[in-house]
């Protein structure tokens, strides 16, 4: 676990908004949005058919 600790606490190690923290937060949000849109909204028929029940179950627009 130590490598995570060192990665999570760069030299400054402060609570203040560091550029690396903002970059990490934005990168995570972008990754999440790409997965969310790809799974829940992508148009190609085979993706729609593979994710059909998931889209319906979570109330996302389907068909």
């Amino acid at each position, binding site marked *: *676990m130590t490598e995570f600790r060192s990665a999570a606490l760069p030299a400054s190690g402060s609570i203040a908004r560091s550029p690396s923290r903002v970059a990490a937060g934005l990168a*995570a949000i972008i990754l*999440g949005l790409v997965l969310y849109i790809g*799974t829940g909204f992508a148009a190609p028929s085979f993706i729609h*058919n593979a994710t059909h029940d998931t889209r*319906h179950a979570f109330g996302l627009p389907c068909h």
Partner: protein
Amino acid sequence: MLKSIIVSAFGAGLLAGALLTAVQFVTTEPLILAGEVYEKAADAAPAPAATHEHADASAPAEAEHHHEEGAWEPADGFERSAYTLIANLLMGVAVSAVLLGAMTLRGGRIDAKTGLLWGVAGFFAASLLPSLGLSPELPGTAAAEIGSRQMWWLGTVGASAAGLALVLLAKPWWSKALGLLLAIVPHVIGAPEPPTLEAAYPAVLGAEFVVASLVVSALLWSVSGLSAGWLFNRLSGRA
């Protein structure tokens, strides 16, 4: 920091996706399969143009809902369930990554408790508020063109998320008022209207599905937030 976020998002997302697949299996899935029985029966029935008074008005709308012929789809049973599991796992990772990313941008403590709170807020923004305009639909529900609904849904998610963030996180009263306004605007604009309110399935089946779907979504967001916050807290070594 990004490494802890990604590892936590995958860990929490896989847990939430697997759990939600089990929950769906006994809640939404039986209703979806029942809805499809009615949908297929309606498709198979010969168009009663001569005997049905409203045939001319409703026929084109129903025709739009036929599944595309010839496109690949998983076989019913194990294969279909397996793809649903994969899609649920991806949704779990997606939701966990967005929540952890937002909590990281916001700063402050990230643990199971704050994760759960962000998860509940995410459910409001990305599921509950958009559902007010576009209810969860059983297969066979008549609805407007898919592109316009997806656009309205995503726009409403964005406006609701920004609105909730302003209401809950901003200090000045006018930011909170602006946030409230943002959350309301998509509903004033209005979601794309379905061509008909008639459905092939019994009304109670649709009602049961709406509730089941909202419960499943609430669980997805809250379990993802809770476990992502807990895992990130463990991995980043802050007790």
